[in-house]
């Protein structure tokens, strides 16, 4: 243990001495969060709208105002049949509402009237969202008019949905994405920085000198992990605080549980980094392996963006080996739901197992190289 501390102290001094690495570890993650946090946004606003009003009545104008007042659409042009195609092609408008002649009269006499909504479908995701915005707006407009001229017939639908979205009532995608980003950024920084540390010693030749000493691989691994653990914990807490300040990420659970989950997750990431370091002979190889092993699985297979439940079975099986999967469940549980350990202890156990496995692999692998 005393020897592990000697290794840890040396590693700490190296990190602190190496200003560039230290800054990279502490600030790049927060910068990443800003970049991703603002760029990666599934909420759609400011859809450029063209209106082809062929009715010119109070009713048609009311529909146009409903679109504009919804906040999702910006009215940019009044169009007609001739100019629509050109404007859509030039991307000046991304949606067009066509209000047919006779709309007002039809509405007042209770006849059905189709309102055409043209949507640029080059981005299918956006198009789907815009379709649902448009139908919602038209539905609520439609409710103002009676569909049956006979006043004795009730026009109210018998079943109505009254949705209440829990944990994220405004359905802000930031609340869903930011915990994922935290896991993603913490994973990459922790894995990459540790992966470089042993490979650097191999490149510099200090590894050989250390191997000549009566120092066991276990102490070496433990000593190497401690400083990187501290630095990545500080860095991860940094991005969580930035996320709370800038993206209104709530903190509904306890900080202790958060620290516990975060620590387990980071130790696993460090273990992975050390393992990669032990199998790479140069910093370059270590860097590439580390990026590949942390970046892709955490982005694709953790439930960060793509829901695991809708993946094919084979891929779903792979996600069990991705630590971010467990951490995300715990993290979202803690910050969004204020859930206690009882609801995600399985995930914590999985994270602990992953961490133990990775550290053991790294130690075994280094021990084999030791002699």
């Amino acid at each position, binding site marked *: 243990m005393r020897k592990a*501390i*000697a290794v840890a102290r*040396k590693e700490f*001094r190296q990190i602190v*001495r190496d200003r560039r690495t230290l800054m990279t570890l502490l600030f790049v993650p927060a910068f990443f969060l800003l970049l991703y946090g603002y760029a990666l946004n599934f909420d759609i606003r400011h859809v450029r709208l063209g209106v082809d009003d062929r009715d010119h009545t109070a009713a048609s104008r009311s529909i146009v105002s409903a679109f504009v007042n919804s906040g999702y659409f910006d009215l940019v042009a009044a169009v007609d049949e001739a100019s629509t195609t050109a404007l859509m092609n030039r991307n000046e408008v991304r949606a067009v509402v066509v209000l047919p002649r006779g709309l007002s009269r039809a509405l007042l006499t209770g006849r059905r009237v189709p309102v055409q909504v043209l949507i640029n479908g080059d981005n299918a995701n956006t198009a789907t969202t815009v379709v649902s915005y448009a139908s919602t707006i038209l539905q609520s407009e439609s409710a103002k008019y009676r569909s049956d001229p006979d006043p004795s017939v009730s026009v109210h639908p018998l079943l109505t949905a009254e949705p209440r979205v829990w944990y994220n009532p405004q359905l802000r995608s930031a609340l869903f994405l930011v915990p994922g980003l935290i896991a993603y950024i913490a994973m990459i920084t922790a894995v990459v920085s540790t992966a470089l540390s042993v490979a650097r010693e191999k490149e510099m*030749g200090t590894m*050989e000198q250390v191997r000549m*000493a*009566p120092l066991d691989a276990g102490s070496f691994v433990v000593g190497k992990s401690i400083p990187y653990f501290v630095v990545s914990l500080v860095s991860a807490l940094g991005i969580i605080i930035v996320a709370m300040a800038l993206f209104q990420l709530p903190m509904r659970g306890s900080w202790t549980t958060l620290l516990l989950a975060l620590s387990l997750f980071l130790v696993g990431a460090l273990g992975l980094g050390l393992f990669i370091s032990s199998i790479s002979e140069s910093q370059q190889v270590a860097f590439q392996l580390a990026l590949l092993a942390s970046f892709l699985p955490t982005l694709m297979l953790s439930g960060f963006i793509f829901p695991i439940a809708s993946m094919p079975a084979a891929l779903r099986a792979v996600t069990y080996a991705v630590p971010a999967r467990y951490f995300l469940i715990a993290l979202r549980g803690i910050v969004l739901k204020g859930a206690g350990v009882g609801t995600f202890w399985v995930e914590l156990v999985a994270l602990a197992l992953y961490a133990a496995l990775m550290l053991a692999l790294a130690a075994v692998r280094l021990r084999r190289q030791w*002699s």
Partner: protein
Amino acid sequence: MTNGVRPMTAASGGADLRVGPPHAISVRDLTRRFGGFVAVDRLTFDVRHGEIFGFLGSNGAGKSTTIRMLCGLLVPTSGTALVDGVDVMQDPEAVKRRIGYMSQRFSLYEQLTVDQNIRFFAGIYGLRGAALERRRRFAIEIAGLDGRERTRAADLAGGWRQRLALGCAILHEPAIVFLDEPTGGVDPISRRQFWQLIDRLSASGVTVLVTTHYLDEAEHCHRLAIIHAGKLAALGSTDDLKRVFSDRAIVEIQAPNPVEAMRTLDRLDDVEKTSLFGTAVHAVLKSARPDAVDALRRELVAAAIPAQAVTLVQPSLEDVFLDVVDRQGARA
């Protein structure tokens, strides 16, 4: 391999009733293969306590592989090696506690200061308290870095880094020190200072096994092993080794066109072989007859080779090395 007086291979074995191992290092039939390639081939030798023992050989001769096996870093394919009485196969960790190791890479942590490097290596050797302080001072003193404890290792010139690396490698007062081409890339003055350190270690009873391909450095060693193609080609003190030429003579010829001179010399019956030494040619004669030089001079005149000087010279270590390697090659 006609008149080969193969210099004595160290003899040993035998019962020894003293406490402690009879030899600092004792190697028997040590072999290491990498796939089909035999890097070290049945090496057998002993190193005495407090001796400076040189390993001389060209690159790839198997010097480093041997050292790595002796340090417990590489498992031998066969054979045995006792280092300070400990079998390297059975207890490599115990070997590590007894030895110091330094390679030509002077492996220090460049971002750390002199003092931080010393403290780290002391830490992984388990030194603390008074022992740590005493050895820390010792390392700083031998490196000549008094007052520069806070300098970063990266900012030290080669010679200082080399001596600091040595200091760090012997913090735990090992009985045996392995130096693998310790003077690579260092200026001549620093090399000289470094060898003074090695002499000092040896005088204090530490056994030093050093590999080199600098022949001038090899002269500093008490005994030398010449390694060629993984085999022990010769072993003994420099004087012992030079005795391979006891019944032959070496003649140095200064000629304006040495290559042409060599070609002519090689055709002569008396000449065993020739080699280029700087601008001169060394010819090894098959016999040490007193009139051999005169005979050679006459032959050169007859062959119309202009030679400014033809003189009998004492064999140098380089002559020995080339001769040994040559005959080892012929035997293979």
